[in-house]
């Protein structure tokens, strides 16, 4: 697409609104409601109130001293999104969007989930605000994240297992979109990542940027300067975009997004859209997507259900193309190594998603100077993954 086609909801050439006509009016309503909410101080107050007293923000920026000493390089800080209510950053966005749904007078919510973290966060806020909740989850993910399925059900949500395709996050997104088309008049779609048609990538980014805003304030308090380097994992890219956004203008802060390399990029079994740089349209946005020679979307592969998605959010695609953020990928085995490293040095079991960032950050930290600062976005806790990890380690 040429420069001339750049318009609303675009990040460079990426983004847009590639959805069936039936959804266009709902997207326009959502955009309008969101613009009004942004300007409304009572909305912001309400959101901030829940973020503080319900989610438990602000969460710490923790100096990981033993990890720092073990690696012998940069001073490492962890942004503790794992300490949020429900155990991951996903609640920041789910809460904001549930308040938006309320504002639009929609009593029903649909969501997709991969690892189940976004599904749990959505089910949680739906219980809190008395919204009917239906969550679509790939069949494979239902299997590997059985505990999260039960959590959602305890919270009163209906979880629908999706058999189509590879039975993972991409297929759950397809079903959630189909459900939304069929129920658009009374239902809001709480999209969980920085993906999908405009205005979703912007909404998700704005509700997640609290991660970066707090980090910036906290590091200035603790160190009196900005970090040299920030690392976050990237599936669709919501924790990363939330962390990066307040630092994008600070050109001295190096930003790294870490995708899932699964069994290795060469194996073809991975979830690293930036490793192949194929542009296309999926789930409403123009972005980089894993696809075959006929433009059919390929199945992503990762040990981590939350990174198991073939595309990457449109704003990340743009940040990649302008060279502001470096994107790289970490394999399943390396992520497992990262998970064990943090567990043993700091007594923190990270989510498999976050473990990709930890492994990558550890390699960077070793090469950095001791007076340099590195921040890792610890996007979620690992309780949900212990069975997967146990199985993977036994098989080794």
């Amino acid at each position, binding site marked *: *697409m040429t420069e001339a*086609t750049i*318009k609303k909801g675009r990040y460079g050439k990426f983004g*847009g*609104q*590639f*959805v*069936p*006509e*039936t*959804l*266009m*009016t*709902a997207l326009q309503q959502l955009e309008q409601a969101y613009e009004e909410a942004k300007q409304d101080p009572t909305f912001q107050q309400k959101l901030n109130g829940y973020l503080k007293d319900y989610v438990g923000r602000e969460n710490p920026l923790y100096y990981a001293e033993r990890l720092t000493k073990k690696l012998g390089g940069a001073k490492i800080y962890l942004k503790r999104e794992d300490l949020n209510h429900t155990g991951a950053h996903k609640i920041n966005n789910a809460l904001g969007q549930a308040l938006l749904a309320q504002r639009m007078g929609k009593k029903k919510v649909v969501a997709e989930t991969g690892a189940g973290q976004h599904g749990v966060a959505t089910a949680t806020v739906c219980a809190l605000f008395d919204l009917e909740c239906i969550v679509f989850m790939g069949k494979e993910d239902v299997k590997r994240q059985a505990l999260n399925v039960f959590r959602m059900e305890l919270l009163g949500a209906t979880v629908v297992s999706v058999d*189509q*395709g590879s039975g993972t996050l*991409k*297929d759950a997104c*397809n079903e959630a*979109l*189909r459900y939304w*088309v*069929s*129920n*658009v*008049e009374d239902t809001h779609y709480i999209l969980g990542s920085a993906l999908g048609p405009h205005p979703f990538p912007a909404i998700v980014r704005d509700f997640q940027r609290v991660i970066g805003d707090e980090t910036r304030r906290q590091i200035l308090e603790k160190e009196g300067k900005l970090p040299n380097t920030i690392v976050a994992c990237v599936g669709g890219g919501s924790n990363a975009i939330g962390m990066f956004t307040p630092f994008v203008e600070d050109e001295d802060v190096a930003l790294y997004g870490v995708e899932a390399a699964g069994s290795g990029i060469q194996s073809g079994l991975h979830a690293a859209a930036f490793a192949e740089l*194929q*542009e*296309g*349209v*999926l*789930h*409403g946005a123009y972005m980089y*997507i894993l*696809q075959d*020679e*006929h*433009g*059919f*979307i390929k199945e992503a592969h990762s040990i981590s259900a939350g990174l198991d998605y073939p595309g990457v959010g449109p704003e990340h695609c743009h940040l990649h193309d302008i060279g502001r953020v470096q994107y790289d990928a970490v394999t399943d085995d390396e992520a497992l190594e990262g998970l064990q490293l943090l567990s043993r040095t700091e007594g923190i079991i990270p989510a498999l998603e976050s473990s990709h960032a930890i492994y990558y950050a550890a390699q960077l930290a070793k090469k950095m100077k001791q007076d340099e600062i590195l921040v890792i976005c610890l996007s979620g806790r690992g309780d949900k993954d212990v069975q997967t990890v146990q199985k993977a380690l036994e098989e080794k």
Partner: protein
Amino acid sequence: MKTLQTQIERIKARGQKAFVPYVMAGDGHLEEQLLYLQQKGATAIEVGIPFSDPVADGPVIQEAGQRALQNGANLTRILKELHTLQATIHIPLVLMTYLNPIIHYGIEKFVREAEAANVKGLIIPDMPLEEADCIQPFLIETDIALVQLISLTSPLERINKLAAAAEGFIYAVTVNGTTGSQSQFKSNLHEHFEVLERAASIPVLAGFGISTPQQVQEMNQYVDGVIVGSAIVKAFHENNNSHIDELLAAASSPIRS
């Protein structure tokens, strides 16, 4: 005026209704299906290109798409096949495809080869008018009509905008849902069609969830014709051609009013 519209206008002028069946290319024998529908009096035929992630489609067309993909169907192969069918298929063919396979193929190259294969229309369910400028400029000089879908949720102002941009015919989506949707038609559907009729200067065809001869006749009271997808795909898959005959008979029978 592009050929697709001319054909439908011609039928309309005779006081008849258009009937546009849908087939999934690669699910069964494409040429046989097209010939059958042509011989039975279809006005035009929608040819579906299978896709890995068909978000606008319900279970019947999703499954047909999966079968087609397993049979190795893809855009390249289907365009080649359509090219060879020009000697036998004379009614307009309308491609229904998601956007990604076209982007991957190269939009300009796709338009050139679709035109060479005598394709007369294009429906892209995940490309609303706002995003149509990625392909529209390449279609201007061709005989390929870019069909616009108008949904029940489109407000009047938007209906007018869509109708003004529409080519070939207006695809009036009859339900909020995916193709083959089993939900009940709204009781005030005729009011929606009246709005479309006023907004449109080209024929209006209704589609999504129309599966029985009764529904064909019911819709034909209000619109210039119907599109039937899932019911046709299912009938071909089950070798139940008599159901197809019934649908076509219903489309050509006099309109009750």
